[in-house]
């Protein structure tokens, strides 16, 4: 008997040194949610989890991704320079590279203390206009606050972020705290902001799966739209329409916190000009405020600073970033959480599943079953989350449902768990609790769940 035990021990020692190989494509043929990006899913769950090209790129796009990655990460320099592909920074800017805010293609954080400067948190600004659609820029600061400038120009200033915490409790008596942000604009280089200025804070989101979202057919997105809530479920779902600078007309918005960009390409070009001060064929002019003469006089080569080829590469890069596979997707608590997510109604807006169409930047992403957990539509999120600033058709209460894929890996990649448009939520549970407006009933149901089930639901979201 002893010998048998010894043998068993030996055999288990032997098995332990066999390689534990996982077939990555098991289950793809029978759609399983473990692979939220379908064939565009990656299996690296390390701090580089958000930085991989979709494994199914072909036609040299896998190599072009390398070039895109390079320009995503490199710092732009003041113009003119000998590295003229990489010059044209500013005159005003938020950051010198894409990767400064989307570090490791991940999500930015708000300042961690009130002395720290804002980097990945930017502020759109505009003044009330009589004309629908028009976002009237501020005379001195333009349409976006840029804390940095090239040498020789006065910087626009800094934003000090402070929080007030308030305490609340669940029906079962457990308490929770939420922090309310206040933004103070300081060290202003061009005078005080006008009293009627409308300001919208926006944090840099993690980027995975953009090309897959772009591949969803417009029809499928509009199927869920119910702007006037004709089905009386309390959930509207409104499409934003944004000016498409390639097609020269308004088309469905999909990207950005307010769904104000129709394509990955335009989102990328808009971020280049708005955040780094790099002009392109899509946005050929620096965004100087009407009264910023120094901005208008700054060195300018008279042609787009971003060559079309580099815009192509960075667009490809941004679109092709693959979605990491889910963790713990088959654990009982996660499955229980998934059931509760549906029962309380989270998935009325965080739509789990789409089959992509045949549109968008990446042909390999066509006809793919994906699990992004977004409807890409605008919803009223209530007064507490409101920025009170219209953006296209989005009113000051409305935000686009953000996709949830990758959300549980932000901690691994970016070493924080700040969520929502301005990073006020310190984790998934707080982010859920901030939901108001159309989501109010859903949140009431969530709060009524026993603690264990609330944890399951949060664990499910974390597994995405």
């Amino acid at each position, binding site marked *: 008997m002893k010998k048998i035990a010894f043998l068993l021990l030996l055999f288990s020692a032997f098995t332990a040194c066999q390689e534990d190989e996982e077939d990555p494509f098991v289950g793809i043929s029978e759609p399983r949610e473990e692979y939220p990006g379908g064939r565009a899913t990656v299996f690296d769950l390390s701090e580089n989890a958000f930085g991989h090209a979709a494994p199914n790129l072909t036609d040299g796009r896998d190599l072009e991704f390398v070039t895109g990655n390079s320009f995503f990460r490199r710092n732009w320099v003041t113009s003119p320079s000998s590295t003229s592909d990489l010059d044209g920074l500013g005159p005003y800017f938020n950051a010198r590279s894409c990767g400064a805010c989307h570090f490791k293609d991940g999500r930015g954080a708000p300042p961690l203390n009130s002395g720290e400067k804002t980097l990945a948190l930017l502020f759109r600004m505009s003044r009330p206009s009589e004309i629908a659609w028009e976002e009237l820029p501020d005379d001195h600061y333009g349409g976006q606050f840029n804390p940095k400038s090239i*040498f*020789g120009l006065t910087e626009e200033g800094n934003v000090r972020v402070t929080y007030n915490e308030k305490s609340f409790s669940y029906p079962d008596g457990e308490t929770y705290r939420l922090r309310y942000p206040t933004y103070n604009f300081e060290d202003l280089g061009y005078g005080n902001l006008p009293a009627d200025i409308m300001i919208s804070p926006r944090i840099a989101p993690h980027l995975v799966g953009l090309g897959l979202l772009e591949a969803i057919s417009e029809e499928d997105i509009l199927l869920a739209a119910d702007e006037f809530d004709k089905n009386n479920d309390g959930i509207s779902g409104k499409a934003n329409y944004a000016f498409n600078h390639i097609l020269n007309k308004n088309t469905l918005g999909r990207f950005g916190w307010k769904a104000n960009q129709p394509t990955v390409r335009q989102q990328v070009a808009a971020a280049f000009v708005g955040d780094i001060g790099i002009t392109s064929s899509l946005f050929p002019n620096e965004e100087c405020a009407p009264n910023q003469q120094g901005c208008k006089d700054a060195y300018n080569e008279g042609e787009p600073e971003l060559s079309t080829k580099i815009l192509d590469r960075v667009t490809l890069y941004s679109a092709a970033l693959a979605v990491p596979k889910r963790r713990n997707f088959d654990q009982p608590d996660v499955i229980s959480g998934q059931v509760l997510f549906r029962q309380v109604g989270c998935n009325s807006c965080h739509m789990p599943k789409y089959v992509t169409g045949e549109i968008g930047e990446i042909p390999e992403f066509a006809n793919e079953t994906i699990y992004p957990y977004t409807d890409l539509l605008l919803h009223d999120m209530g007064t507490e989350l409101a920025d009170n600033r219209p953006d296209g058709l989005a009113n000051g209460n409305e935000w686009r449902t953000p996709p949830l894929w990758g959300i549980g890996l932000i901690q691994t990649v970016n070493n924080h768990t700040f969520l929502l448009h301005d990073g006020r939520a310190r984790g998934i549970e707080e982010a859920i609790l901030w939901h108001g407006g159309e989501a109010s009933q859903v949140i009431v149901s969530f709060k009524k769940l026993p603690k264990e089930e609330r944890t399951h639901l949060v664990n499910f979201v974390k597994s995405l």
Partner: protein
Amino acid sequence: MKLNTLFILSIFSIALLFACSDDEEVSSFDSTQSEVVETYAQIVYLNYEDALTDAKSIQTAVDALISSPSAATLKEAKDQWLNAQESYGQTEVFRFYGGPIDDEDGPEGQLNAWPLDESLIDYVVGSSNGGDNNDATNIINSPSDFPTINKETIADLNEVGAETNISTGYHAVEFLLWGQDLRTDMPGERPYTDYATDGSGTNENQARRGEYLKAATDLIVDDLEGLVAEWKDGGAYRTSFESSPSSSLENILNGMGKLSKGELAGERIFVAWDLRSKEDEHSCFSDNTHRDIVTNALGIQNVFLGTYLKIDGSTYTGKSIYDLLLIDNRDLAEQLKTTMEESVAAGEAIVPPFDQEILNEQGRLRVQVTFTSLRKQGDELAEAAAKFGFSFDPDDI
């Protein structure tokens, strides 16, 4: 009978167990591993020491240029700068794992960062003192904003982190010696009179330009001295590095693989090749990019073979990663050795200037062969790491 079967089975199992953790092999692997790590540390030390010696030669030449500017002193400073790239280029394989060169307060961003904010440093075509119609300003030509130019002031301007102006390091010195790279058929053409303070000078603020050049050069020497101190026998980093050979081996392989594929093949070669863009070359002012490629590849090969040719002509040799791979993975060891030879040879076949090579058909082929080999090399290094039980992505830099 039953006992017998059990007996045979247990012998069989013991044999199997030993096959997967042979005591003798393990100890031979462990001791070789320690020696490999020690060899590496010694190569790092010798290589940084050479880089320091070469940087001091730039310092001497720069001092001579500043005190008596002439075509000859400028040429000597340029020659010394080019010479210094030969040793420094080989050290870049010591990056990419958060060692002394690029840990949180490591000097990499101050020593060799690129691209350079040249128009922040000095005049360029289109800015105030270079002519044309622009009044962009820069440090050298703004005495009221920057009354003092010394190591501290320029290091402060080269801020830390991702949000940085690049105003120091080898490429800053390169820019101050060569000037802007404006012509396709030759490097920058800064006149030596940019440093003449006797009234015959060109482009204003010649003394301040000299102060900047001296400060930037002195900073390189300081940074390299810091690295030598960490890696010398008994140095703080070296001591801890050698005391944990397994994680150090992992770091060594990370540096080799990531320099091969992500940095050299990707950032430095493929991007310029893909965009056919002369503006993306690494040492653009001096047109020395072709040597950057070769010295980087050599540095990787040095580490792999455990050998380093010092600038005094002597060779240091010790136990290598190649030796370590030979123990259990002979085929991969030989394959990597061959790939590295091919990478170095392909790099050497690139015809300078690199910015022209990426435009003509034959040159593009030569460049393609180089990055293809280096990409393969990165993948094979990741494979070797996997054999030792580590995993890393050679693309992730």
